[in-house]
């Protein structure tokens, strides 16, 4: 295949506000059908929409985190189409004055994927088709969304996935959405066309709608690019149409389009006044942004001295990074804390979802208490790992498993004989120490600690060793 992929992604992200975009109904997921509803979100005649301030704030937050320019003047438009899940027969959205424009997401390679625009809009209800009947639940109707539209800067399936992954992570960091793709709180539409390398013109594009997992984005791009390449290779032409990705067959097939959906007759919603945001407010929102994943990643490497691989794993989940930083704040060492999280805690979590959820039974402070024992070499790493495992399983603090007597639980006689044994077995080291290489004494500590299973009091061991070496 000798084509270049030209791909842009439109992402719908459900905002984590308490109430819907135009009424005070809750946005809570689930619930009995039509119990999170009122005249406004079911499109009752005479009802009027009232815009939720938080929706605007969250959209601006998202825009700032994605390096966008914020339009301080904006308004809502109506997008008209008739469909049973849309109770007013129009979706209130933004057309020519989106809240945010001209941003970007930087990929690991340093390549920037442009963000064309971010606008706010409302979600539709849910249709269920069953045995000749269609049922409608409007609980989702009016839940706030932002639509993030990328430039067609994506040129591979891997980039598509990385773009979506980074977008998801940033949204989660700034707390505007949980971006659960399986629950539909983040959905992607992939626009894709092919062209010969060097061709300045775009080919005919297709839109693959409602992709609900990161890996499917990658697969869908691959499948659609292959499908288009096969057509072009055979001398055919691409038809501009809406597609669906089928994960079972790993293929992309045309979707029956909503009829007449090609002319939405956008116009400014006369029920909602335009709104303006002053620069100060934008700056206030900017100042409220937390450290973003990429900045955190750099800090973990440059300031905390972590490896790229470890840093990447820690920043990948907001709650993990918070837990890690919480432990550090409690006095745990960076290295031991990081390794115990990535090594021991993660080994208990099989899926991405579990890591994202990071529902563990101990607090960062309890974790730090354990890490500090290892830091102070009161226990060795092996003990730390096994103890952490027990703590995770039981939810009990470290004191439950390592008693003070465990740390000093070896008699002086035993310790003395072990120290002598260490000296006898390491004559060369002893000679080095006597010749002034004081650090070599660590070799002897290691020997004793190993023999005691890390339980010996390190200060006592040092005193004994020095006495026997004659220092």
């Amino acid at each position, binding site marked *: 295949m000798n084509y270049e992929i030209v791909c842009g992604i439109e992402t719908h992200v459900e905002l984590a506000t308490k109430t819907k975009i135009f009424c005070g109904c809750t946005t809570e997921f689930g619930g009995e059908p039509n119990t999170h509803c009122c*005249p406004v979100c*079911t*499109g*009752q*005649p*005479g*009802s*009027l*929409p*009232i*815009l939720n301030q938080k929706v605007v704030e969250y959209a601006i937050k998202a825009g700032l985190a994605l390096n966008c320019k914020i339009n301080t003047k904006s308004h809502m438009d*109506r997008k*008209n189409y*008739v469909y*049973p899940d849309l*109770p*007013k*027969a*129009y979706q209130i959205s933004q057309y020519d004055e989106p809240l945010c424009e001209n941003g970007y997401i930087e990929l690991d390679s340093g390549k920037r994927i442009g963000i064309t625009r971010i606008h706010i809009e409302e979600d539709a209800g849910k249709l269920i088709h069953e045995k000749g009947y*269609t049922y*409608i639940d409007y609980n989702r109707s009016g839940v706030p969304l932002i639509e993030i539209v990328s430039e067609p800067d994506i040129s591979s399936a891997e980039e598509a996935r990385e773009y979506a992954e980074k977008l998801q992570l940033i949204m989660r960091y700034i707390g505007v959405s949980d971006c659960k793709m399986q629950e539909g709180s983040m959905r992607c539409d992939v626009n894709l066309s092919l062209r010969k390398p060097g061709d300045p013109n775009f080919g005919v594009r297709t839109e693959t709608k409602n992709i609900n997992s990161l890996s499917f984005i990658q697969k869908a791009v691959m499948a659609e690019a292959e499908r288009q390449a096969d057509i072009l290779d055979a001398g055919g032409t691409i038809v501009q149409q809406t597609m669906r990705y089928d994960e079972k067959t790993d293929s992309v097939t045309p979707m029956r389009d909503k*009829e007449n959906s090609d*002319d939405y*007759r*956008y*116009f400014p919603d*006369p*029920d*909602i*006044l335009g709104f303006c945001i002053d620069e100060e407010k934008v700056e206030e929102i900017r100042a409220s942004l937390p450290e973003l994943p990429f900045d955190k990643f750099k800090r973990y490497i440059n300031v905390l001295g972590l490896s790229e691989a470890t840093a990447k794993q820690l920043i990948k989940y907001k709650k993990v990074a918070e837990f890690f930083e919480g432990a550090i704040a409690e006095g745990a060492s960076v290295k031991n804390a990081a390794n115990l999280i990535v090594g021991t805690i993660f080994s208990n979590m099989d899926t991405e979802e579990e890591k994202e959820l990071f529902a563990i039974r101990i607090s960062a402070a309890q974790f730090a208490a354990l890490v500090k024992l290892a830091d102070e070499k009161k226990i060795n790493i092996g003990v730390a790992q096994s103890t952490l495992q027990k703590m995770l399983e039981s939810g009990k603090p470290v004191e439950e498993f390592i008693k003070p007597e465990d740390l000093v639980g070896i008699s002086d006689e035993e310790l003395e004989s072990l120290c002598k044994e260490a000296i006898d077995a390491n004559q060369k080291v002893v000679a080095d120490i006597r010749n002034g290489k004081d650090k070599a004494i660590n070799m002897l500590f290691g020997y004793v600690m190993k023999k005691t299973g890390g339980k010996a009091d390190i200060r006592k061991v040092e005193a004994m060793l020095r006495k026997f070496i004659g220092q």
Partner: protein
Amino acid sequence: MRTGISELASKLRKREISAVELTKTYIDAIEKLNPTLNAYVHLTFDTALKAAEKADQMLKEGDAPLLCGIPMALKDNICTDGLLTTCCSKILEGFKPYYDATVWEKLKAQGAVLMGKTNMDEFAMGSTSETSCYGAPLNPINTAYVTGGSSGGSAAVVCADLAVYSLGSDTGGSIRQPASFCGVIGLKPTYGAVSRYGLIAYGSSLDQIGPVTSSVKDAAIVFDAIKGGDKRDQTSVDYDYGDSLAERLDRDIKGMRIGVAEEFFDGINPEIKYKIMEAIALFEKNGAIIENIRLPALKIALPVYYIIACAEASSNLGRYDGIRYGYRASSYTSIEDMIVKTRSEGFGDEVKRRIMLGTYVLSSGYYDAYYKKACLIREEINREFDAVFEKCDALIAPTAPNTAFPLNHKVTSPVEIYLSDICTVPVNIAGIPAISIPCGKDSKGLPIGMQIIGKKFDEATVLQMAYFYEQNSGIDVGVYEGGARA
């Protein structure tokens, strides 16, 4: 002149009459006249009597509001909890909202007694009330003529004294023109002065609820009661009107500057022009300064209005799909087919025409030439009015270029009827207040209406001028044989 709201209220407070007795009088009159006039389409006597009993309780306890126990009516496009609200359209057959419009909530809290919902053009689209799915209401002044529209029923019930006052809605003249045809008072407030929550939308940026009454003072009393900002309607404004407007009607018009624009008199029936000129002369004689002004953009206000109103309507009426309320086609092959059949069977011709026009002017390729252009001209019209109000306190114009049409008046094109809105639509486009007040009759004995137009939120001046005219012109309003208080 008929007994006004304040006199009735005083009788009720003094217990010379009870609210229940008053309500029963109105029930009797309605039962007698409504079968002929067809002014009410849904009667709510049961709830009216209960409301009257409650009102009597409030009156006994003292400190009852002015509107407590007063029988009134609402246009059928104003939502009333548990009571039919159908916009006189088959598509809203059987629709009972489970919420109240803000205006009705306010009046109900005052102890208002709702007698029923009044006839109107389907979805308020029309100038004769003949597009109602329940058939046209008849003009009580002469039943061979239409009431005007779209709030024809609201004007007729006040004219025939089947309600002390009523509320209508005005998108392009729908309160003022029927008030003029039926010889009563109709006030269209400033856009935003009264909450639209619960008013079933036609043209959202133009719609406004207002009172129809038999005196200027009553109009002021009702406006006082319904105005105010509403957190459920973002386009409403919590304007500070100061004290009650009904208490401030007396004002010396000496030195008041009244604008008269020739554009408002283009193509007006000469009889009407003559009466309006007479009225203007009365103001001048009493010391008002008459300014001849120009409003050149008015000549294209009518298409601008129809483009904007229909664009909004085509979107507002998309929701009538047979799924959540109202009429649903009985047989169909798919949901899509059900929606198309429901709408095609449920909407009348005029509504379909306006939905089609609205769809057209918003569709791709035509948006800039029609909808966008209309919005830009709307701005121009606003600027012209702003400039005029630099020099004038208010404007006087006819309410309509003609008096009431005969029933079933044949027209060659729907546009012919559209043209009769020429005097009223500029006011909606600019979002300013205006009142229609009777100023005599034509040679057929049909009422003529005069329009007094004011600045945004200056209902005070509009009402004061109307009050002056009412007190000094010697024209009787709402004299009707056979009404409730005959």
